[in-house]
């Protein structure tokens, strides 16, 4: 695989779309998402000899993409302010559980409109399924901070979803 360009292209074709979807959720623009995707795939090819065939290849690549996205966000100056979290008190948990009538694309756009810190933690917990302990380790924050930030993000998102459900097709989200 390492020196086989055809095999490398096949791997890229098989996973690029899904992985760009992941990168897209962590960034604010498609160009940024493609930058992360490019960096992530290069890491994938470099790390392939270390792949132990434990679990799905897609899951392994997904982990690399998420880590790449996190590192990318940490490096980018424009996101650094949003990514600095204060150790806040836990936000009251909302009981709302709106029915998500949005299409996937619209939902992804809503997630991307969250502040970067919220966006990242929301993606890691709600979509990727990481626990707050894991998120805390990954982002260098405490578990409680991760939890409070997530609840803020969740409430904000639910608010937007409810608003969107009542006023469908009134807002166009750009990439």
């Amino acid at each position, binding site marked *: 695989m390492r020196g086989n360009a055809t095999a490398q292209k096949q791997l890229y074709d098989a996973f690029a779309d899904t992985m760009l*979807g992941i990168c897209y959720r962590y960034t604010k623009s498609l160009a940024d998402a*493609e930058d992360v995707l*490019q960096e992530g795939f*290069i890491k994938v090819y470099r790390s392939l000899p270390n792949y132990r065939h434990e679990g799905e290849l897609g899951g392994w690549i997904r982990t690399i993409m998420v880590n790449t996205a996190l590192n990318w966000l940490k490096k980018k100056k424009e996101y650094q302010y949003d990514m600095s979290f204060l150790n806040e008190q836990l936000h009251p*948990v909302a009981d709302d559980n709106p029915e998500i009538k949005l299409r996937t694309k619209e939902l992804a756009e809503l997630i991307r409109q969250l502040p970067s810190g919220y966006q990242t933690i929301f993606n890691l917990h709600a979509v990727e399924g990481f626990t707050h302990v894991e998120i805390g380790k990954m982002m260098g924050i405490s578990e409680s901070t991760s939890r409070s930030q997530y609840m803020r993000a969740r409430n904000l998102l639910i608010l937007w979803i409810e608003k969107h459900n009542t006023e469908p097709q009134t807002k166009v989200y750009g990439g």
Partner: protein
Amino acid sequence: MADNNFETNMHRQMEDFKISPSGEVWQKVEEQLQKDKRRRRWFFILPITILLTAGLGFGIYQWGKNKGIAETVVQQNHNAIIDKKEQSAESNNPATALPKSNTSTAKHSIKNEFIKKNEDEREQQKSVSSVKPSNNTATQKLFVKLSSEKKTNTTEKNVAHKQKKSDDVVVHTKIAPPANTPVKSSISKGESEPVKTEIAIVETKPTVEQELVNNIKIISSDSTSSSSNTSSDSSIVVKPTNKKSPNKTKWNMGFEGGVGFSGVNNYSNAGFPAYSNSGSIAGGPGNLPVAIGSESKIKSAVSFNLGVTASKKISKQNFIVTGLRYQFASTKRNIGVAVNSGNASVQFRDYGTINAQTSFSGGDTATYKTKYHFLQVPILFEHVVGKKQLFSYYAGVTPSLLLSSNALAFNKNDGRYYRSAEMHRNAQFFLNGGFNCKPSIKSKFSIGPEFNYGVLNFFKQNGPQQRLFTGTLKLRWMLQ
């Protein structure tokens, strides 16, 4: 639970979220992968290159260092001889030496004082005393020990040997005292025997220098007044000893010969367009080709070489090997029948018009043995491996002169083989490599395989593309 539904729905919905990336992404990824590939290549090439360069550099450095040290030591000893002779001359006539000498400088005065001082010290000291001269260029770094002993004649006695450490290099000399300033040892007060001064120059040097300095021995002799034991004439003669480190300073000659196989890499069919049957032969038996056949395969055959060789040690384990040898190589191929035995002007491929002495049709009715005769000058770098130095490998280049060959060139124009010396490239160039092993470190014989590969096409430009190679089992016999 309701919260879990939100997360579950979110996860499920986002799992299906896909976006197609633009084509630029893959291009950039591919570029980066190519860069990685090049970097990986350098990762392997660079250390090898560094090692080879360092090895070669070290060899050259050692060679240059040895040469430089040899020159320095010779120069120092040359200066020492001049100084000592001047000193001796002045010692012979101490009363007149200073006034007469136009070039007498403070240096000479210091020398005289130095000698006198030593004589005074001899009277005061029973054992060896030490001083450090500062005016003698040859002894700037040397430590001079003076000893005074009671002697009845000028029999040479090497005091330095008594004091010599295991790793010291000793150059010793003896200077008889001036005639008008008789010196008596404090030990032998009242006795009239002449006292002999021995100057032992003790120097601790690195091993390489030690070896070179060891080759020069400064001894005293009464060359101008050998009849008198009490003469003050003390001249110094430098006599190189017969001990020489073998192989390091001179070429080691020998003979070598090998027997093996030779073959030809034939690329003639590659890169040449298929020629139509449009060739013609002028002056031959017919203007039209008599047969169109494909070129036969060239098979390996016997080769051997014989010559003289010379090797020179450039460092502890590295040698330069060269020589002059005759190399015979041969190959076999199937051909058809002889078509022309006279000169023929042939339009040969895109080579142009050639004069061919002989031509053969294509086919397999006969076997043609091609012979190559070369005069070669191998220039090799040999590295000896291991403590016992029984095994070595070498590599290098071999400029070669083609003496003669009956090699055939196949012409696709008419499907014939032509023999034309004017197509052969007389100046050839081979890459060499091989191994040598010998039964013991002192053995003069060594044996091992050697491979040669022709870098240049055997035929001249636009001719058939053939490269000659040989493999022989070579026996080497060195005289030392």
